[in-house]
């Protein structure tokens, strides 16, 4: 994922954050939904539980699940790439909607 970042160095990373509102946090189904959504974009998309990382590839369900983000946690996004803005809007929208579960 670092390679992806480097190759798109001309795109400044965009960041945003949102609170996980769905009942059990970033669990199995939300993780799958998030990664499926992230994979639709060319941009590198990463998540973290703190504003300064550590950052996790949002396109990998295995890695996203390792974050074990609980309900009520603040989820930070860092996005870099040509379609970065659209990507950020899409993933933030997903969190706000509680992944369709809240």
């Amino acid at each position: 994922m670092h390679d992806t970042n480097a190759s798109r160095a001309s795109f400044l990373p965009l960041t945003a954050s949102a609170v996980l509102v769905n009942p059990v946090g970033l669990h199995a189904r939300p993780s799958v939904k998030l990664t499926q959504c992230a994979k639709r974009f060319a941009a590198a998309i990463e998540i973290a539980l703190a504003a300064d990382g550590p950052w996790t590839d949002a396109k990998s369900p295995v890695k996203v699940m390792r974050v074990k983000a609980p309900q009520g946690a603040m989820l930070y996004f860092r996005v870099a790439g040509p379609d970065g803005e659209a990507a950020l809007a899409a993933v933030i929208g997903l969190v706000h909607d509680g992944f369709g579960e809240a």
Partner: protein
Amino acid sequence: MTEIHLTGRTASPGLAIGPVTVLMVAVESRRARGDPAQETAALKAAIEGATAELAELIEAEQGEAADILEFQVAMLEDDALAEGAFDAISAGTPADQAWRAVLDAEIAGYRSAEDEYFRARTADLVDIRDRVLGRLNGEDKSVEITGGSIVASDDISPSTFLAADWTRGGAIVLAAGSSSSHVAMLARARGAPMVVGLGPLSWEGRPPALALVDGDAGTVIFDPEPETRRLFEHRMDAANAARAVADAGRVKPALTAGGRRIPVLLNIAAPEDLAGLDPAICDGIGLVRTEFLFEASQGLPDEETQYAVYRRILDWAEGRPVTIRTLDAGGDKPISGLTIDGESNPFLGLRGIRLSLSRPEVFRLQFRALARAAVHGTLKVMLPMVAVPSELDRARSILDAEIGALRAKGIACARPPLGIMIEVPAAALCAEDFSAAFYSIGSNDLTQYTMAAARDIGAVADLNDAGHPAVLALIARTVEAARKRDVEVSLCGDAAADTRLTTAVLATGLRTLSVAPLTVARLKAAIAKVSS
């Protein structure tokens, strides 16, 4: 052969009877191994094969079941999962060993998760591991579960569950397991009763032939006597008829046929019990047991851990009242390092409030966490096993002192109303003498202390009757004391959920009942039939 009674926790309600299938989980290592290139190819093929297998299963499933399998597919399709295994293979490790080691490490991460929900995903990862191992070994290891049988195991994977036919009855009883596991969700969705946390299932080489499963109470009886079985079948018939009617009315407020509104609260043993529940089904939480905190931390949970958990429960309740009970250890709930071993009669010994007052440092910590959490909702705190007013008074001074200390440090806190459990007959008879903010009747202990009969001793279990006039009289007396003192009173023992007693219980004047989430629908249906 004597019947064996085991008590666990309920994960899916309902009653079932059937032959027992004991699942032995064992995936053997394969014999023939090749060079790293062959091993890499073998693992790749096994992962692809497992993914294809799952995709096929998804075709046949819908909704929740399909979602769960899609999660497994997403994990298998992610290169990050097997990365470490392929590295190990290039370094000379055989494919099956490499895969197992990497997945076991991943599984350990889930198993040690703080959040019960993530812990419960362990079974999915085990499922993924074993499905790929099965392909590597080139053998079909799937166990045949005959429809209608009671599956007894340590834990069970979603694919094992989905491979069985649950339309013909059957149930799941697990030594370990979790009520938040995917299998538990599936079991609830399919109406298969499930009991978890039964503890080691050892048959000394002679597995039981038949089991009775009570998914409502969280109990299992192996190899029942004919009479036990007959009574159980009787209950099953009645329950099946009642269930269909009940499920419809869960989110509606409970009203008697005479139009009286009966607040229905929830009893929970851990915040995970609330996962996926709509707060609208209840009027608040009537009992939060806090023993789980002490079991999970295998000792004494710190203030922050307790505060976080209490706050989570208050957040869930969205302003509805939440009653948290201080530690009720001792009796049948020993906690290592805290309760006294070898008491001659633990039920009459140092338990509940008595233990808390003898270990004030533990009690103080719990009060501090509670007072801090009280800022975030409508919190009430109740003391278990109170027998005399001085116990309440001493607890109150400890609470006051802790609140004073918090305020002195400028830490946000609030003073929750302090109430008492009524479970000792002396407290029921003299309820009026306690300056309690509320009463909550614990009918289980009240019954066993009134009738001098434990419910887990089969020979006297019939005496342990919460509907006995003596027990009902003590309840009525407590209700009367509450009316005179103008404080709230509720019932949180199993008698509240026992729909055979609903009429008698409401006749004592009680208005508020607190029951396990899974029994809310049935209780509301029973209340609707009460005429007054």
